């Protein structure tokens, strides 16, 4: 499978569109960092108004850890889109170019090819998240320095001491990998059914948007559906920044996302095995 994986990785990283994601993330991160560098204090003053009306807050609130947290919050919707851009193209792109038939005439079986393609997609997902971690976390630390992390969530305040933050980011990025792999698995499955990459990409993004809206709306009818939507569990990375960390809820979310990956991956495998490549 290793030669197949190498080929698939080469295909991904030789396409200019792959780098759109890396450039897009870099531009978005830099823009946010620039905005905070130029006028971050005013933004914080406005954002913390409710708190500072009643409390005196002293110290370096605006630091690299906080900027990274804000960046991650902002990217909730954008990163799945960028993942879908490559994952949705994996099979449909080959079908569109007519190379799928050629690929399947080689000795490697369909399962092996599918595994190689999915692994390559996973590696792309991880690379994108590492890129994001480097820019958003390391970059922000470089520009703004480190300090205690204070976050306002719901109607509560969480404060984490400077030495107690980095492991939270490591865990959050680790969890984000699982969450984004779920999106990749969905795009990958849809890609099996399509003959053109646009369809699975748009469909994946649409599903993520609709599910996210359902996850956000606080309407009793949707509350019964929410626990089954993967978008509800994708934001479990935030749990690592809560006090105390809701470990059991995070493990449940992790299990549900892994279940989605297995289910979507399994469905893609079955569909790909049965796919008629002759018509």
């Amino acid at each position, binding site marked *: 499978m290793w030669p197949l994986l190498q080929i698939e990785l080469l295909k991904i990283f030789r396409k200019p569109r792959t780098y759109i994601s890396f450039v897009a993330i870099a531009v978005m991160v830099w823009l946010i960092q620039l905005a905070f560098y130029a006028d971050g204090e005013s933004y914080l003053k406005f954002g913390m108004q*409710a*708190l500072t009306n*009643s*409390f*005196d*807050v*002293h*110290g*370096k*609130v605006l630091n690299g850890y906080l900027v990274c947290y804000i960046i991650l*919050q902002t990217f*909730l919707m954008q990163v799945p889109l960028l993942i879908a851009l490559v994952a949705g193209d994996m099979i449909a792109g080959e079908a569109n170019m007519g190379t799928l038939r050629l690929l399947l005439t080689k000795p490697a079986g369909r399962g092996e090819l599918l595994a190689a393609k999915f692994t390559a997609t996973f590696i792309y997902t991880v690379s994108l998240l590492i890129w994001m971690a480097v820019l958003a976390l390391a970059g922000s630390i470089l520009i703004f320095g480190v*300090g*205690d992390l*204070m976050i*306002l*969530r*719901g*109607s*509560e*305040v*969480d*404060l*984490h*001491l*400077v030495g*107690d933050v980095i492991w939270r980011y490591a865990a959050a990025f680790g969890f984000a990998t699982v969450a984004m792999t779920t999106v990749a698995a969905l795009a990958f499955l849809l890609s099996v059914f399509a003959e053109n990459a646009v369809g699975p990409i748009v469909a994946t993004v649409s599903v993520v948007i609709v599910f*996210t809206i359902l*996850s*956000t709306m606080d309407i009793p009818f949707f509350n019964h559906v*929410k*626990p089954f939507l993967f978008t*509800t569990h994708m*934001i*479990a*990375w*935030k*749990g690592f920044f*809560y*006090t105390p960390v*809701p470990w059991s*809820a995070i493990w*449940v979310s992790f299990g549900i996302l892994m279940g989605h990956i297995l289910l979507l991956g399994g469905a893609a495998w079955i569909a790909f095995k049965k796919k008629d490549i002759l018509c």
Partner: protein
Amino acid sequence: MLLVGAALLRWEGATEAQDVQALLSKVRSKIERVNDYSADARLKIDVSFMKVPESSVVVYFRKPDAFRIKKEGGISILPKGGVTVSLNSLLATGNFAAIDAGTEPYEGVLLHVVKLVPLKDLGDIVLTTLYINDKTLLVSKAVTTTRNNGTYEIALEYGKYADWALPDKAVFTFNTSGYTLPKGLALEYDQGEKAPAPKTPSDGKGMIILTYSRYVINKGLPADAFK
């Protein structure tokens, strides 16, 4: 007879006022020996909607009322007004009317209760009740009602630095019902079953506990201590 009675009452009232003033004067002279101090302390915040870990802080004070709690390289969150008012700033000016309110037991000791009403209508403080130990000339408890920051209580425990009237432990209790944070707009992680409400000292109360480990008294302070 009536005239004698009235005269006696007035005399008794005047004597009580003199006693209270004398007591306060003694307390104040003890407190006023401290021109400035910096102190290493542990800060614990017990407020239901704040998840703040216990941390090391440095407390700065300079006469008459400059007071600052600083967490080196970190963030400190403290209720407005409540913690920044020290006993020194209350008593230093002498600009108040003192009323003797008798005695009251507090933690097994009978304390003298003195109510202080500011004479000038300028500050935030409306009324302060001091619970003073006559023998040690130390304030064990102070309850202050402010115009803008609610009512708060300071309980003080003395030890090594009792001679300087500086506490080893100070517990600030304040009402949190007035402190509300609006619900954020960001998408939050739903943890499924709601976690049980965090325990608070009592309903609608918050606590700030400062445990002092070391004072440096009257040695001057860094220029940026109150910045």
